[in-house]
């Protein structure tokens, strides 16, 4: 089972805290990959939080191509974190440059509507990815303000130390981190969690048995960025994106999309009519688990949900100022040992647990409760 650890904090934290928590949860062989999502960054990236940051891995040739592409689009580099390593540990291939580069957007951006700007960011990322796939010289994981993503194959702790992720300019307030296990060896880095699109990021463990129909459905939504699907878990990110952007629904509604209530549970629910409608409309996005999904929304809200069967472990806990979501309790113990453990919560089959970016409390929302009023 893949290990998941996410941390949300009022103060920036080293990504190694999350990686160490993963390491504590390690059982048996592990080395299929590690992925990191970092937002709420400190250091130079925080100076201009509105500048989009491109994260990816580039060969020397790819980096030159990237410069050409970004130059043509009018993006000017502002600050970069470039990690270049020559002697990778066993199991990790030798790559080029691990890059996180913030760009000053073109002047015209100031007058562009928000939707157009975000669409262009997604299209640019997808275009770089596609061009990179043809030449095998560029990999782009995210292109979004205030977000850095890092992915690599290998043991998470070894990879984290190898890449030197403890550096201050990668300290972040919100971190999602996954260590992959039990996956095959034809490893594609794009299959490493977490997955990201337009500020929405999620990671998952477990198999997604309804993957093929959901992938077909999402691919046909005509939404730029609903591509890839090297992992069956990428659909969870896109469903959240769809729920957030296309349906305009809050985090509490996500669970109603992926695991709707049964008719008996819905009877007498304050939002019965709306939920019944949602169940019909979003039927193709119903998942069948077993999955634990942890994610982060554009506003910094971090959440955890389980599938309908609740076959995976998952716990959220912490203290005001810092909360963590972990696929196993020992990970949480390692990261925040001085918390009140009696307040730890393991979301069950109806629950959504989330922590707002202020990090003051864990909110639990059961599907049996009313949805918050729509603005």
């Amino acid at each position, binding site marked *: 089972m893949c290990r998941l650890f996410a941390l949300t904090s009022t103060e920036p934290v080293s990504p190694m805290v999350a990686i160490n928590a993963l390491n504590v949860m390690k059982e048996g062989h592990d080395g299929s990959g590690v992925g990191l999502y970092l937002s709420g960054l400190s250091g130079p990236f925080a100076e201009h939080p509105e500048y989009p940051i491109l994260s990816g891995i580039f060969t020397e040739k790819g980096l030159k191509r990237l410069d050409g592409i970004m130059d043509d689009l009018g993006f000017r580099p502002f600050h970069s974190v470039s990690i270049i390593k020559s002697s990778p540990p066993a199991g990790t291939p030798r790559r080029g440059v691990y890059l996180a580069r913030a760009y000053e957007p073109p002047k015209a951006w100031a007058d562009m509507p928000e939707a157009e700007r975000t669409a262009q960011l997604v299209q640019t990322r997808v275009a770089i990815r596609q061009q990179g796939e043809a030449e095998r010289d560029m990999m782009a994981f995210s292109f979004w303000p205030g977000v850095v993503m890092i992915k690599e194959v290998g043991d998470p702790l070894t990879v984290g130390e190898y890449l030197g992720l403890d550096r201050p300019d990668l300290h972040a307030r919100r971190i999602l981190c996954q260590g992959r296990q039990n996956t095959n060896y034809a490893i594609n880095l794009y299959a490493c969690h977490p997955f990201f699109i337009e500020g929405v990021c999620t990671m998952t463990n477990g198999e997604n048995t309804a993957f*093929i129909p959901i992938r077909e*459905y999402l691919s046909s939504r005509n939404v730029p960025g609903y591509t890839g699907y090297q992992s069956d878990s990428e659909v969870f990110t896109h469903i959240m994106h769809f729920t957030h952007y296309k349906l305009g629904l809050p985090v509490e509604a996500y669970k109603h999309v992926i695991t709707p209530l049964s008719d008996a549970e819905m009877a007498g629910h304050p939002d019965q*009519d709306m939920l019944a409608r949602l169940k019909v*409309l979003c*039927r193709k996005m119903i998942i069948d*688990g*077993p999955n634990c999904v942890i994610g982060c929304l554009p506003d910094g809200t971090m959440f955890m949900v389980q599938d309908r069967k609740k076959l995976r472990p998952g716990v959220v806990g912490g203290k005001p100022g810092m909360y963590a979501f972990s696929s196993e309790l020992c990970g949480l113990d390692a990261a925040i040992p001085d918390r009140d453990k009696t307040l730890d919560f393991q979301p069950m089959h109806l629950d959504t647990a989330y922590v707002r970016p202020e990090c003051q409390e864990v909110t639990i929302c059961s599907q049996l409760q009313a949805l918050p009023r729509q603005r």
Partner: protein
Amino acid sequence: MQPTAGITPSTLSVKDLPWQVEWNKDTCTLCGRCTSVCPVSAIELAVHRKRVVETTTGLMQKPKNTYSVFHGIRQRTDAAYACIGCAMCTMVCPNNAIRPMRLDEGTALRFHNNRGGHARTRGGRRNAPDSLLDQIKFIRISMLTDPALDAGRHEFELRTLLGRVLPPEQGLKAFQENGWVPAVREIYPLVIGSMSFGALSPNMWEGLQMGVAYLNEEMGMPVRMCTGEGGCPPRLLRSRFLKYVILQIASGYFGWDEILHAIPQMKEDPCAIEIKYGQGAKPGDGGLLMWHKVNKLIASIRGVPPGVSLPSPPTHQTQYSIEESVAKMIQSMSMAWGFRVPVYPKISATTTSRAVLNNLVRNPYAAGLAIDGEDGGTGAAYNVSMNHMGHPIASNIRDCYHDLVQQGCQNEIPLIAGGGIGKNGNLAHNAAALIMLGASMVQVGKYVMQAGAGCVGSEIDRCNICNLGRCPKGITSQDPRVYRRLDPEKVAERVVDFYLAFDTELRKIFAPLGRSTSLPVGMSDALGIANKHAADRLGIQYVV
């Protein structure tokens, strides 16, 4: 045969017939039940003359002949009275002294069943025992990486949607603005397909309705049944049970005068309206109820005079194009029930199915598309239509589903698959395979008759006289002397039995695949087949 009898081209011997009646003189009690029950008078009481040559030892006495007679059964060899293999004779014989046996080389009848220039007509099925659906295996079994589920104890949602589903954004907006949305029914994915009141006997229809009502009201299974083109009994139209009924309208519009006049008195809306443009067993041919079956009751429900054959035209005479059909028929039927009832067309599987579907996708009033494959059954059709016309269902459904995926409408317009599902008894398997190929639900007819009422039809041209009104089980007969054999209560019990068994088997298929929270429509990664061409064509895995 007498030595002086002439031999005509159509003179057949018993050996020329596909079904041969074996009769045991030693155990026969001459009770006569077999001859009286035979629906086609293939056997008759006969007096057989027997000669015995008696020779004694020695030379003094000459051998002599002794003539005697014995009474028994004789099988007629006239093509019009050929045995159909229904084995009712065996069923009624107290001593099991008689039974029909199939003789595969008895093919001569095939060349002589067109006496008077009339091509053979019959009821039944295609008579092709092979089934591509039966070859499909479910290969994606949950093992360790994701736990398999307990089919017996886990919760399952085995429901499907019948009706037009709007794209999520549009549907939610309509909800927020209190706008109109097309009617959608959540129903059980196994629907009793269209078999008309007329094609079926009153007892059979009553039994089915009772079974459906029991499943809904006692077992909580939202099972639906389609009427076929023959109207609907007036009391049912005005009862609360109408909500379990899909009313069918076809090119003959039989019974629709009664239905339309009953609308103001309806307590419930029907589940849906099915507009039949074609059926899989005889594509491009209209429905047919032979005059033998049009008695007073049938005639009054259908609004026609009794004793006349009722052929429906092959097409709806008032429509000349698909666009017009959608505009006229679907919208006006929707309007009749205030846009509260899903309306969908049913067509024969054909290479033009995709064109029909693409048209329906663009009309928000089209609630689905039912496609009936070549293995569908019928009450009456020409032999040639049944055997050689039509398109297999699997690839047709798959193509249509792929088209929907391409247009992003795969959750919006349900595909209803029919034709040959469970033809060899594998009902749940066949249904699950079609669902995973892209069907939202399946329709069955023949299986319902076989499992629900003991129809003896099989895929080797057995019985198949549904068209004559002489169904030996009383399933498709309109003669009270015959259909009183069928107890509606027992039919209802059997319907409930096979539905419950189907439900268990469906769970037994879905649970190991790790699926329980929604019907796995289009889960093609779970399917495999040991036939490379079929695998490529259907876009599923080739496994050996």
